[in-house]
C-alpha cells in the first residue's frame, strides 16, 4: 500500500474558490482511482492561497488483474459478425458458447493484467487538471493554461521513492519532488518525501497547509489580543473563511480606529472594515462596536507588525474619513427632497423609473396594510421614502448599505421609527437564512416591494428560466412566502394583491388596450404556479411533506397561503391516523378500478348513480352515510374548520371498507356494473373535495 502526494503550486487562488476546489480535487482523483479499479484507505485535500494539496493513503502499487466477460453474437450469426467478435479479443482469450434468455451466444473471458499504478497516475492527474471545474479560469504566457492563475509547479510522489512527472505541455517540466515555502519568509526550494515530511517541512517554511488550522490560529490569537484590552472578537465565520484563504502564515494584529470616527453608524464602520479591508470588528462587554479592529497579515515583520498596523490604520482612516464626509453631507438634505431625483434612475426599461416603482408600492399599501396590521399611512410614507437613499453619497460609496442608511437618514429627518425601520427592512428577507421582518409596517413594505417586482417582471415576460434569474425573482417569491407564513398573514394573493399590483403597472405604462382589461389574469395564474413551485422548495427544505400541500393546492383557486397550510396540516394529521391511512387505501382502490374500467370502456362514470339499482346492504349503508356526511364536510371546509372536516371524513371509513369487502363492482350485469362504477366515482369526488388524494405519495 502506497501514498500519493500531490501539490499544485500556483499564483494566488481567490479565497472564495478554495473550499470548492479542495472538494473537487478530492472527488475527481478518487473517482478516477475507482475507475481504474484502485482502492484506497483515505483521501484528504487542503488549500492555501498558492497551493492545492491532496494526499491519498493506501493505494495498491499494482492494479488488480481483472477478468471481464464479453458477450458476442448469437451462435449461428453471419460469419462476418463472429469473426469481428473474435478479432476484437486478445489472442489468448477463451471463447465458449452459452445460453442466455433462450438463445445461445458466444462468450469470451478476457483477462486484463493490472499495470503498475505509478505508470498510470501521470495521465490520470493530467486529465483532471485539464478538466478541473474552476468557476473561472485563465490562460497565460504562450499557450499555458487553463488554470485559475498561472500554475508553477506540481509535486507528485507515489511512495517514498517514486516521483511522477506531470507533463502538461511538451518541454515544460516541473520539480516533481521539490516545493517552496512562504513567498517572503522562506522562498527556497526543498525536497519532500511524503505527506508527513511535506507538512512538517512546509510548516518550518512558514506555510500551514490546513485551512482549519489557520482558522484556529486566527481565532486563538485574535481572542488573546482582544482579551488583553477587555474586548471580544465579533463572530464572523464567513469572514474567517475568507481571511484563512488569503494567508499561508497568519499573523494576527490589532489596530485602533480614531475616536472622532466612532460616531459613524456601526453598519458603516463594519462595512468599511469587513467588505473593503477584511478586518474583524471587536466588541466591548456590552456588545457595542469598540474602536479596535483585527487585521490578519500574511507575514512576520522585523518590527513585530508596527508598520503593518500603522499602514492599515491609515487606510481605514482614509476610508472612514470619506464615509464621515458622506454622513455629514447626506444629512443636510432630507429623504423627502431626494425622492424627485429617483425619476432619473431607471428601475427597468419597461417598468419605469425607481420613482415609478416607489409610487406603485405606495399605492399598493392600501391593499396590503390591513392584512399586516399596519397603519396604511405609515406604509405609504415608508414606500415613498424607501428608495430615496440610493442617491446619497454613502450608498454610492457603500451600495451594500442601502436601506440601512435610509433608516438613519429617515430618523434624522424626524420620520417615525416604524417608517424608518420599514425602510431598513424592506429588502428582507434577502435569502433563506436572512431574518424576516416582524413589525407590521416593515412586513407590508417588504411584501409590496417584492410583489410589485414579481408582477411587473412576469407581466413583461421576464420570468426566471433554468439557471437564469437576473432579477432574483425566486428569492423575491420565497421572501413573500416567508413573510406571509411566518407572520400568519391572511392575504388573498391572486384575487386582491396581484390584481392590484398589475393594475398599477398597467396604469403607469399605459398597457390597457380596452376600457376594462383582464390582463392580470394570466399573469396572476402564472405567478400562482410559480409560487406553488417555490413553496414546494421552501417546504421540502424544512422537511415538510409537500405532497400533502400539493393535494390541497391541486384543488385550485386557493391563493391564501395561511389557509392552504392549515388545510394541509389538518390533512397530514388525519393521514397519520389509522382511519386516514385506511381511507387513503380505499381511495386509491376506487381510483384504480375507475381508471382501469374507464380506460377499458372509453367513457367516464361521472354521472350520478341510480338509487333504484342499489341492491346490496353495504351499498345502501355507504350511500346513506355519504348523503349525511358530505354536506357537513363542505360546510366545515368553508368555515375553515379543517380538522373537523377530516374527522367527518373518518366516519366514511367503515362504510367504504365494508363496501369493498362485500360488494363486487365488476359484475356481469352491465347496468349494475355501470351503477357501481358511478358510485365509486362519487366516493372519489367526495374525498377530492377535501383534498386531491391522488397527489398523495403512499
Amino acid at each position, binding site marked *: 500500500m502506497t501514498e500519493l502526494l500531490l501539490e499544485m503550486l500556483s*499564483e*494566488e487562488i*481567490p*479565497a*472564495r474558490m478554495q473550499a470548492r476546489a479542495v472538494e473537487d480535487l478530492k472527488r475527481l482523483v478518487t473517482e478516477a482511482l475507482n475507475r481504474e479499479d484502485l482502492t484506497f484507505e483515505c483521501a484528504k485535500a487542503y488549500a492555501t*492561497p498558492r497551493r492545492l494539496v491532496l494526499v491519498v493513503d493506501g493505494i495498491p502499487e499494482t492494479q488488480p488483474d481483472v477478468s471481464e466477460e464479453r458477450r458476442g453474437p448469437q451462435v449461428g450469426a453471419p460469419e462476418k459478425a463472429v469473426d469481428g467478435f473474435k478479432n476484437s479479443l486478445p489472442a489468448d482469450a477463451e471463447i465458449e458458447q452459452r445460453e442466455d434468455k433462450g438463445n445461445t451466444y458466444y462468450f469470451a473471458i478476457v483477462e486484463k493484467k493490472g499495470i503498475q499504478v505509478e505508470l498510470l497516475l501521470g495521465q490520470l492527474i493530467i486529465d483532471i487538471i485539464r478538466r478541473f471545474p474552476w468557476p*473561472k479560469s*485563465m*490562460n*497565460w*504566457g*504562450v*499557450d*499555458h*493554461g487553463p488554470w485559475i*492563475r*498561472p500554475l*508553477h509547479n506540481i509535486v507528485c510522489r507515489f511512495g517514498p521513492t517514486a516521483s511522477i512527472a506531470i507533463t502538461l505541455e511538451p518541454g515544460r517540466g516541473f520539480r516533481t519532488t521539490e516545493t517552496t515555502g512562504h513567498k*517572503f519568509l522562506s522562498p527556497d526550494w526543498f525536497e519532500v518525501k511524503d505527506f508527513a515530511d511535506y507538512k512538517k517541512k512546509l510548516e518550518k517554511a512558514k506555510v500551514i497547509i490546513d485551512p482549519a488550522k489557520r482558522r484556529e490560529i486566527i481565532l486563538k490569537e485574535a481572542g488573546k489580543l482582544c482579551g488583553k484590552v477587555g474586548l471580544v472578537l465579533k463572530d464572523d465565520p464567513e469572514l474567517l473563511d475568507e481571511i484563512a484563504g*488569503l*494567508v499561508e502564515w497568519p*499573523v494576527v494584529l490589532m489596530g485602533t480606529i480614531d475616536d472622532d470616527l466612532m460616531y459613524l453608524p456601526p453598519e458603516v464602520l463594519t462595512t468599511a472594515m469587513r467588505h473593503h*479591508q*477584511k*478586518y474583524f470588528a471587536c466588541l466591548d462587554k456590552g456588545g457595542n462596536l469598540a474602536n479596535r479592529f483585527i*487585521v490578519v*497579515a*500574511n*507575514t512576520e*515583520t*522585523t*518590527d513585530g507588525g508596527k*508598520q*503593518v498596523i*500603522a*499602514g*492599515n490604520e*491609515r*487606510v*481605514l*482612516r*482614509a476610508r472612514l*474619513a*470619506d464615509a464621515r*464626509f458622506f454622513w455629514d453631507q447626506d444629512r443636510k438634505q432630507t429623504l423627502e427632497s431626494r425622492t424627485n431625483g429617483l425619476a*432619473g*434612475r*431607471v428601475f427597468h*426599461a419597461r417598468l419605469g423609473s425607481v420613482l415609478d416603482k416607489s409610487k406603485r408600492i405606495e399605492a399598493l399599501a392600501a391593499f396590503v396594510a390591513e392584512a399586516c396590521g399596519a397603519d396604511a399611512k405609515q406604509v405609504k410614507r415608508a414606500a415613498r421614502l424607501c428608495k430615496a437613499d440610493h442617491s446619497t453619497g454613502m450608498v454610492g460609496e457603500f451600495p451594500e448599505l442601502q436601506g440601512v442608511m435610509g433608516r438613519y437618514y429617515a430618523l434624522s429627518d424626524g420620520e417615525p421609527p416604524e417608517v424608518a425601520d420599514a425602510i431598513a427592512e424592506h429588502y428582507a428577507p434577502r435569502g433563506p437564512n436572512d431574518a424576516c421582518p416582524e413589525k407590521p409596517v416593515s412586513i407590508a413594505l417588504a411584501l409590496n416591494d417584492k410583489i410589485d417586482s414579481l408582477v411587473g417582471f412576469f407581466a413583461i415576460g421576464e420570468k426566471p428560466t433554468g439557471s437564469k434569474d437576473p432579477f432574483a425573482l425566486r428569492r423575491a417569491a420565497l421572501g413573500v412566502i416567508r413573510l406571509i407564513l411566518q407572520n400568519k398573514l391572511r392575504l388573498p394573493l391572486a384575487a386582491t394583491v396581484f390584481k392590484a399590483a398589475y393594475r398599477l403597472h398597467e396604469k403607469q405604462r399605459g398597457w390597457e388596450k380596452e376600457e376594462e382589461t383582464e390582463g392580470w389574469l394570466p399573469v396572476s395564474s402564472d405567478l400562482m404556479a410559480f409560487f406553488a413551485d417555490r413553496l414546494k422548495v421552501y417546504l421540502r427544505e424544512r422537511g415538510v411533506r409537500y405532497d400533502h400541500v400539493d393535494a390541497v393546492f391541486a384543488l385550485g383557486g386557493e391563493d391564501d397561503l395561511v389557509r392552504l397550510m392549515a388545510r394541509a396540516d389538518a390533512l397530514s394529521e388525519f393521514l397519520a391516523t389509522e382511519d386516514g391511512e385506511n381511507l387513503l387505501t380505499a381511495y386509491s382502490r376506487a381510483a384504480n378500478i375507475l381508471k382501469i374500467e374507464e380506460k377499458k370502456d372509453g367513457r367516464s362514470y361521472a354521472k350520478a348513480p341510480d338509487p333504484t339499482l342499489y341492491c346490496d346492504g353495504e351499498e345502501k349503508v355507504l350511500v346513506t352515510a355519504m348523503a349525511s356526511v358530505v354536506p357537513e364536510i363542505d360546510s366545515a371546509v368553508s368555515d375553515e374548520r379543517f380538522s373537523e372536516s377530516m374527522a367527518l371524513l373518518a366516519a366514511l371509513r367503515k362504510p367504504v371498507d365494508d363496501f369493498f369487502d362485500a360488494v363486487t363492482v365488476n359484475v356481469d350485469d352491465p347496468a349494475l356494473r355501470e351503477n357501481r362504477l358511478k358510485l365509486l366515482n362519487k366516493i372519489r369526488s367526495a374525498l377530492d373535495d377535501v383534498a386531491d388524494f391522488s397527489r398523495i405519495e403512499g
Partner: protein
Amino acid sequence: MPSASKDANDAKDTSFQSLILKLQTFWADQGCVLLQPYDLEVGAGTFHPATTLRSLGLSDDIWKCAYVQPSRRPTDGRYGDNPNRLQHYYQFQVLIKPSPDDIQDTYLRSLYALGIDKNQHDIRFVEDDWESPTLGASGLGWEVWCDGMEVTQFTYFQQVGGYECNPVPVELTYGLERLAMYVQGVENVFDLDWDGVPEADGGKTYRDIFHQAEVEYSKYNFELADTDILTRHFADAEKEGNALLEAGLALPAYDQCLKASHLFNLLDARGTISVTERAAYIGRVRALARGSARQWLRSQGAEVD
C-alpha cells in the same frame, strides 16, 4: 541634465517624481520600451494604444512597454476638497506580452526598488478580476495590497476589443498618488511632496501644482460642460471613427474611440445619462474599440473575420 543634488535612485528620496524615475529605471532594466503618455484624454493607462492594441497581434509577438499616463475620471472630482479623490491623476503602466513566468517576482522587486521592504510590510494578492465594457476587454488577476492599501492592479489580459489575447499579456497598473502617499506617510494627496526640493528653495507639493486644476475641472465637469456640444462631439467622433475604420486605419480610428469614451465620461459626470442610455453609449464606444482592434489585427497580418 542630471540634477547635481539628487539621485533618482536614492532609496531615501520618496518624492513623487523620484517614484516615477525609479519605476522607469526599473522597467527599462527589464527590457521595456519607455513610452510617454498618450496625448489624448483617457480614463486609465490601459486606454493607451500601446496597451490596448499592442495586446493583440500575432502569436509570436513580443511587446514590453512602460509609461506614465495621466488619467481623467470626471465623476471622481471633488473640487479639491477630498484628500483621496481626484478627477485627474497618474498611473504608471507596464504591459508585457507574453506574460513572463516570473512576473510576480519581478513586480515585487519593483516595489522593493521603491523602498517598500518586504520584511516590514504585508504584501498580498487579493482577487480582483478586471473588465472594461467600453473596450470589450477583460482579464483575471488581483489588486495588490500593501498593509491593506491597494497599490497596484495586476491583470492577465484574456480579451481585448472582443478578441482573445494570444499570447497573453500581463498588465501592471500602479496608482502613483496612493503609492506616493504610502511611501511619504502622507494622508492628504495634496500634501504630497512632488520634487523633494525644500519649500524655501521653491519646492512644490501636489497642491501647488494641481489644486487649482481640480477645482476648475470639477466645476467644468459637473456644472459647465455643455451637454449639447458634448453630445454633438460624441456623434462626430463616432462618425469619424467609423469612416476611418472603413478606410482601414486602425490607429486614427482608435483615437476617435478614445475621444468618444472621454466625451461619454463627461456626459456621465453631468448626470444627464440615464441607465438605459448609458448602456447604449457604452455599446457605441465598444463598437469603435472592436473595429479598431479588428483593423489593428489585420494590419499585423492576423486573420480576422
